[in-house]
């Protein structure tokens, strides 16, 4: 028998039996999964299946109704408010956990009143208490890595979408997170600009950066993922290696979804 490849690797994200509804509409209905150090986990599924909501529950941008979330060994504490609504028990804990998870959004969400460099050092200096010179040094290394060192004194509005998204990735990396969360990082980009962003993400994957990636780029997901989750109506309907999910899924729905996506591409 082969040894379990994750036996020695630490679990960085543990999600157990997560439920979330918006009003009467159940969006997550008992989602459980684990991401280990160095893994690239891709979330795929039809529009509205709850991918973004699941990702946003991980860093508490959405508060789940029930379930367990453990990030880097620390379990998120919840409590109920007077109306019985679940809320986080300790905002400090959430802030701490968020510094371990860095998120990259579909719409980049850079801060328009700060230069590229200022965007990168803001959190390291103001939240993580890094000294400014060190933060700048790291920021410049990261900008070189994503290929926009020459734009460091520009304002985001003067960059292309692909450049902005690479800045957003560098901004996330600058906080030295344990996990990178990506929510459709290339959906707002033209194909040629998407390519330069995917290249950056691919490099991160090869360096062993732990990532959770929501994406509609099936070919890319197949190439970089160590684990793929197929979500359907708030449940994980298929989970496995990229090869399993894309080539021999046990769920018929997953097979149809994957085929349709590949045909479209």
């Amino acid at each position: 028998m082969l040894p379990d490849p994750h036996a020695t690797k630490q679990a960085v994200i543990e999600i157990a039996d997560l439920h979330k509804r918006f009003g009467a509409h159940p969006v997550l209905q008992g989602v459980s999964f684990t991401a280990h150090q160095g893994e690239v986990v891709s979330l795929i599924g039809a529009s509205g299946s709850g991918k973004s909501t699941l990702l946003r529950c991980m860093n508490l941008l959405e508060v789940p109704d029930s379930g367990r979330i453990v990030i880097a060994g620390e379990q998120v504490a919840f409590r109920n408010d007077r109306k019985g609504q679940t809320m986080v028990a300790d905002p400090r804990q959430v802030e701490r956990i968020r510094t371990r998870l860095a998120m990259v959004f579909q719409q980049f969400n850079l801060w328009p009143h700060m230069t590229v460099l200022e965007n990168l050092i803001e959190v390291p200096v103001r939240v993580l208490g890094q000294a400014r010179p060190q933060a700048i040094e790291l920021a410049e290394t990261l900008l070189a890595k994503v290929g926009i060192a020459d734009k460091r004194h520009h304002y985001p509005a003067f960059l292309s979408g692909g450049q902005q998204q690479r800045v957003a990735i560098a901004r996330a990396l600058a906080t030295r997170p344990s996990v990178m969360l990506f929510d459709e990082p290339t959906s707002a980009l033209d194909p040629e600009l998407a390519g330069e962003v995917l290249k950056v993400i691919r490099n991160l994957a090869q360096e062993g950066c732990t990532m959770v990636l929501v994406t509609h780029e099936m070919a890319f997901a197949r190439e970089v993922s160590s684990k793929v989750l197929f979500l359907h109506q708030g449940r994980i309907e298929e989970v496995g290696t990229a090869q399993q999910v894309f080539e021999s899924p046990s769920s018929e729905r997953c097979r149809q979804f994957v085929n349709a996506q590949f045909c479209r591409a």
Partner: protein
Amino acid sequence: MDFSWFSEYHPQLWLAALTTVQLLLVSGSAGFVLAILVGFGRLSKQPFIAWFSLSYTNLIRGTPLLVQIYVLYYGLGSLFQDMPTLRDSILWPYLREGFWYVALALTLSVGGYLGEVLKSGLRAVPKGGLEAARALGMPRLLVIRRIWLPQTLYMLLPTLAGESVMLLKSTALASTVAVMDALGVANLIRNQTFLTYEPLLIIAGLYLLLAIAIEQLFKRLESRLPFRNAL
């Protein structure tokens, strides 16, 4: 035109101009702080805070500023008059002066009007950037201080310039409660020299110069923002 009085009265004129500028600065900055609170209060998810802020702006914007000044000066002022502890306190010299009642009234007024402007401005800042800040671990107050408020204020600079000029003109109401501001001294000169137009002309010119200075200051600020087209 007779400006022969000028040499005699000009020290008083400068002092009065200074009083006007002081009123402007004091109520401008205190009102600005209040407006920020009101602006956030209007957006609060706590029903009571939102209701209170809305009622406040309605009250301020729904009543004449002159009435507010009178209510504070004659109402509050006479109330204080009857409080012996206050009369003996070190605050009394201030509480006797019209200046501080007008400054308070103007502060409350700026809080109401500018608060409503700030509310719209705060709402216009893209949610994505705020969410990114939270997602990267920024505490609430830091998000406000570093991301939300700066973008709002940069965006509102032209409006802030306009509101400041409005405030400058409102300070002239101070003369109605015996404050020797610019208009107050013009009235004094009119009474003592029996000249009507000359002192008023001088004082109108003074207000105009101050207004232009304010506009220029804000234009300067604005031209320093290289990202202003992106907001």
